[in-house]
């Protein structure tokens, strides 16, 4: 049972295709069009899923800690498909998979993540995952969305200068910039962001010409990435999407089917 409490195209379709490829039936429940919109609690929705015969719940939820909250009910296995600004573990796994395929290994990797780190569950999960494999992770972004505490919390380096952060990186991940951060007074305009924090071919060529380019999608072409960047050979953004299905198949298989298989 896929429970999606916030809109998601790529993660949801990726899980659905992974289920299909494994021969599992999946039912997607979008919060906006279900009992959830009528005020049903997360616990009751998970109970309903079990009563309907689900073997597991894949949960996307806007509140940090929601997957843990659902798992603590001890009713069904819960796979976290993204909770608030806390974690997006399968995205981190597919990032690891993509970079390992391209580079041939993760040992000693230098990864730089650029963007709104504060509101990014992808940045948190990927920084922790890459650091665990021995990578040196640098976080870069405007100070309003990259507090010093981020470095402490994630075991990463914090750098507020883009050129310095990119220098010598072997993989660079850009994060999506959301309009509401500008409205919230955290960021100036898209034009300012593009000029100071946007990635383009010239910047990459100067500081890290061979770096693998990652983005969790969906991309704002022309804001965090220059329009032509996705078409360069070093872009792994499409490879990430492809890897997503395989990685989620592996997650479902190992967590749910491993014993029986």
């Amino acid at each position, binding site marked *: 049972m896929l429970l999606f409490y916030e809109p998601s195209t790529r993660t949801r379709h990726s899980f659905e295709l992974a289920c299909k490829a494994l021969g599992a039936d999946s039912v997607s429940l979008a919060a906006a069009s279900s009992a959830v919109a009528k005020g049903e609690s997360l616990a009751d929705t998970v109970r309903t899923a079990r009563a309907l015969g689900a073997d597991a719940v894949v949960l996307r939820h806007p*509140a*940090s*800690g929601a997957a*843990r*909250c659902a798992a603590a009910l001890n009713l069904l296995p819960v796979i976290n498909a993204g909770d608030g600004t806390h974690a997006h573990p399968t995205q981190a796994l597919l990032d690891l998979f993509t970079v390992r395929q391209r580079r041939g290994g993760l040992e000693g990797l230098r990864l730089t993540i650029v963007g709104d780190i*504060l509101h990014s569950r992808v940045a948190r999960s990927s920084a922790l995952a890459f650091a665990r494999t021995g990578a040196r992770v640098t976080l870069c972004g405007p100070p309003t969305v990259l507090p010093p505490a981020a470095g*402490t*919390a994630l075991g990463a380096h914090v750098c507020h200068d883009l050129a310095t952060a990119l220098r010598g990186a072997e993989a660079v991940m850009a994060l999506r910039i959301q309009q509401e951060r500008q409205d919230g007074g955290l960021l100036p305009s898209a034009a300012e962001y593009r000029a100071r924090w946007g990635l383009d071919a010239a910047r990459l060529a100067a500081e890290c010409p061979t770096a693998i380019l990652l983005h969790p999608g969906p991309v704002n072409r022309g804001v965090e990435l220059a329009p032509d960047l996705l078409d360069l050979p070093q872009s792994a953004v499409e490879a990430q999407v492809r890897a997503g299905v395989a990685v989620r198949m592996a997650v479902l298989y190992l967590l749910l089917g491993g014993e029986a298989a």
Partner: protein
Amino acid sequence: MIALKGGHICDPEQGLDAVADLYVRDGAVSAIMPPGSPAPAGEWTAYDCTGLLVVPGPIDTLCHCNPRDEPWRESLADLARAAARGGYTALLAFTGSADPAALAALLGRDLPVRLHPVAALTVGGRLADLGLLADAGAVAFSDWPEPVADARLMRSALEYAAGLGLPVIVRPEDPELGRGGVMHEGARSFGMGLRGIPAVAEAVAVARDALLQQAFGGRLHFAAISAAASIPLLGNATASVTAHHLLLTEAAVAGYNTAAKLRPPLRTEQDRAALLAAARDGRLLLASGHHPSPPEEKDREYDYASFGAETIGSALAVALEVLGPPAFVRATASGPRAAFGLPAGTLSPGSPADVSVFALGSPGAKPQAVFTLIAGKRTSLDA
């Protein structure tokens, strides 16, 4: 007429911190005499308090009450019973009510603690009817748990309440700096992906209101401060800290523990240590900060869970353990008495005999309230 014999009586303002016998006549403290002295003339019902601590009745400076008695929330009777069991003899009950008749009705209730109603400070961006509320029995005014965002309105509130001789109680937090926050802002909130309330959101609000008080006068009390940075900014105002902020830090939030989702939030070890030192020095009063929620509001996603905890039964035991008796009495009785102009909170002869008796903790056992007297009558908890 009651005699409490052989207890350790502690009331630092009266210079009392020794074993003695306490005599209560006509609802008031009549005499405190060295142990074993012959009793004054009269018929005394004696309670043996050997090995127990006898203190002026603790007054809670911050607890939420449900004046409308909504059936799914804690009733006033349940609140009062839990408070009395925990050793309290009086409560500043934050009613949020701007209705003088509702306030007066609260005072008519027969409860095992004295109720001192705190009335609303503002209604819809204007001052509440502070004078009528004072006439109805309000001892202070507060919009708790909401902060007073508008500095001009805060100035008016201080000036107007000063004319009535009553204090204004605020929850210090800059609403914009704290907007949407659910825990202390720092590395832990970042790692958990939870929106933080920075310590400075409290400190700037404390500074603003302390400066307004210095400029325009009035009596000002900050309910439940949580940040070390607030302490040096208090100026002429009084302030309280909750027992749980003396005991716990933000580490209690780990695992998205909604029981530790509190307003103000639990903060760092440095904050906890500074608050404890200030409470021991007599700079801060104690509050229970009691604010229970029905289970369905707590057993859910951390972001969506209610703030607050049920603390009125445990606050005094915790405070007695971490403060020791003399600082405990200053923080729970003499301090609140002075800050809110209340008659009880002292064992000076002639004052109302509101008294609380505690068993002190020992290794392996927490301190515990044994019984309370209100106006010289032993409180019944069976009601």
